């Protein structure tokens, strides 16, 4: 390779001037809204809200101590980590199934969603995750997490390579709490989970990395909170 700096520098300067003249106007264009939005932290608004909920909860607990001198029972019932453990167990149980991974297939999606909504006592949806490479294969009903709770739903998704992720949905969370995304590693199963008032969500997989799982979780969150 021969470098001829002096002669070439003129060429480069001319090219540089031409490129600036051609593309500098882009800098002055109005930035499209979708890009401004993408520049914001994905869960900032949500985290902020969760922060205030936490402050409110702390104030409530303090007030509870002072006024009644007793613990507020609802707090003890909220163990958000419990949802991650149950979701991981359900994932590990059903996702390896070859013949019966789901009770109702995605070919009957409307029926599946209506049935699960009825059994869970609240309207739920099966998010579509095709944009992040996962297709709904169906869902099933799971037993309640305790004797007083409602049944739970599990939706299963699969990518082209055959890896599966499951979405675990509870509608009986007490305490009206909200949390930001949380991550938990339950044995071989990775779980992102969050609580949104009475609904608890957990997205689990044993086969995909944390980053991929987080992008799936973000896609679920976006669809449930448009």
């Amino acid at each position, binding site marked *: 390779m021969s470098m001829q700096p002096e002669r070439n520098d003129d060429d480069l300067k*001319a*090219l540089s*001037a*031409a490129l*600036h003249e051609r593309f500098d106007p882009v800098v002055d264009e109005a*930035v499209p809204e979708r890009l401004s939005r993408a520049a914001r932290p994905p869960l900032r608004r949500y985290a902020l809200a969760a922060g205030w909920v936490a402050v409110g909860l702390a104030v409530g607990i303090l007030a509870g101590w002072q006024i009644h001198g007793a613990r507020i029972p609802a707090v003890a019932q909220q163990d958000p980590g419990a949802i991650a453990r149950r979701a991981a167990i359900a994932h590990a149980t059903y996702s390896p199934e070859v013949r019966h991974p789901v009770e109702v297939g995605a070919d009957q999606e409307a029926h599946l969603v209506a049935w699960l909504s009825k059994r869970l006592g609240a309207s739920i949806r099966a998010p579509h995750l095709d944009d992040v490479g996962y297709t709904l294969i169906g869902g099933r009903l799971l037993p309640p997490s305790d004797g007083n709770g409602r049944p739970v739903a599990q939706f299963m998704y699969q990518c082209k390579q055959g890896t599966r992720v499951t979405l675990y949905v509870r509608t009986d969370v007490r305490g009206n709490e909200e949390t930001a995304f949380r991550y938990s590693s339950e044995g071989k199963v990775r779980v992102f989970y969050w609580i949104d008032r009475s609904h608890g969500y957990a997205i689990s997989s044993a086969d995909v990395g944390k980053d991929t799982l987080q992008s799936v979780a973000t896609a679920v969150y976006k669809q449930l909170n448009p």
Partner: protein
Amino acid sequence: MVGNDQIQAVIPRLRRYARALTGERIAADDLVQDTLERAWRKLHLFRAGTDLRAWLFTVMHNVYVNQVRASKLRYSDDASIEELALREPDADGLVVRDLDRALLALPPDQREVVLLVALEDMSYEEAARTLEIPIGTVMSRLSRAREKLRGLMQGLPQGGHLRVVKT
């Protein structure tokens, strides 16, 4: 802690580079959006106190390489571009179309180097860091790109007066 404002401030530069890189408005903004989303996911890899703009260009480079590979084009393809018949420049200057066409005819790896150096005004060292390649590779890619663009550059007036052609 990196703020939203600092990232917002870099968007116009990212858009300019992406536009030149992809040659198309929508594809360019898609590339910027993918870059911003990836940047938030990878933010823990950004070292505080270093240049955020340079880091975002590196993120964009990685996203771009993945896109090129997914599209089955070759990122680094030194096939001849002689079939690219550059028109003789018009008497009153080069037309914009020729610049766009010549850029897009370069293999993506060379196009990146040309744009980082000549449009983003990066030093060879900064370009090397951004693309995560040795500085010698930057120089050789630039040199090969210059060879290919020679015909184009000979037609460039020194002041770079381009004429926009309405088509």
